[in-house]
């Protein structure tokens, strides 16, 4: 069965995010007031063939640890968004 996967990575809490800070500082210049906590990350969308959601999640978790994120500075949020037709 194919599972659609969304992986969102972002800098860990406590790691400086200069890109997010720059965007946050720029927003008021365009009239967007009151925006705080801007964090910049990446999103990966892909399809994984697997027996069930748990095994797909375990595989993607391993993928994140070993490749998609640098665990020193990044966290990943994994969403298995549903099973498509196999």
């Amino acid at each position, binding site marked *: 069965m194919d599972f659609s996967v969304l992986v969102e990575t972002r*800098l860990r809490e406590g790691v*400086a995010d*200069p890109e997010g800070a720059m965007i946050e500082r720029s927003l008021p210049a365009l009239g967007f007031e009151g925006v705080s906590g801007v964090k910049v990350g990446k999103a990966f969308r892909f399809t994984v063939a697997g027996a069930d959601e748990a095994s797909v999640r375990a595989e993607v978790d391993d993928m994140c640890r070993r490749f998609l994120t*640098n665990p020193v500075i990044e966290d990943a949020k994994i969403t298995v968004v549903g099973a498509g037709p196999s």
Partner: protein
Amino acid sequence: MPVVGVVVFPGSNCELDVVEAVQALGGEARLLWHGDDSIGRVDAVVLPGGFAHGDYLRPGAIARFSPVMRAVGEHAAAGGPVVGICNGFQVLCEAGLLPGALQKNAGLKFLCRPATIRVEASGTALSTGVEVGTELSIPVNHFEGNYTCLPATLAELRAEERVVFRYVDNPNGSVDDIAGICSAGRNVVGLMPHPERASHALLGSTDGLPLLRSLLVTAGAAVRA
């Protein structure tokens, strides 16, 4: 004559500068292809600057899986000198041969200019015979040179005197002004500044030469300077 192997990844762009500087110091330099699973009979390995594999995903994230990296890791584990310059430093961190990570510069600017660094630790692959406290003017050329690590890692680096170079005027936001660090065995060194770009009077500085000479010395042979 010590032989220095300089690894070429797709997207490396400083390999010939390193070769030139090594040869000028009387060493022999040999280019190593990233896709080979051996480094042959070299005494030291340099991972040069550039954009290995386009820096896709993160700088160094894909280069660490290049076949040659297993041999580089074995060379390092055996105590052989391994130096990562700029992108090479990023590769060493991603490969786990050095701790920490390099993220975007605090000012979000690509920096290409001379930086003054201070030698903070001796007896490493790049600072053997260089006095602690020596200040050197060496160019930096990076967007992701902001060194960061967990507080426990930083404490360990300090306690073991593994911060090899610090910026005198921190250009990129690196924690503790770190410009370069070494492994516990002191044979693996990574730094963001480019010693090979400060290796001839025509380049504006020869301050990189003592560092590269150290590499040749630790590579285990006499150097005709």
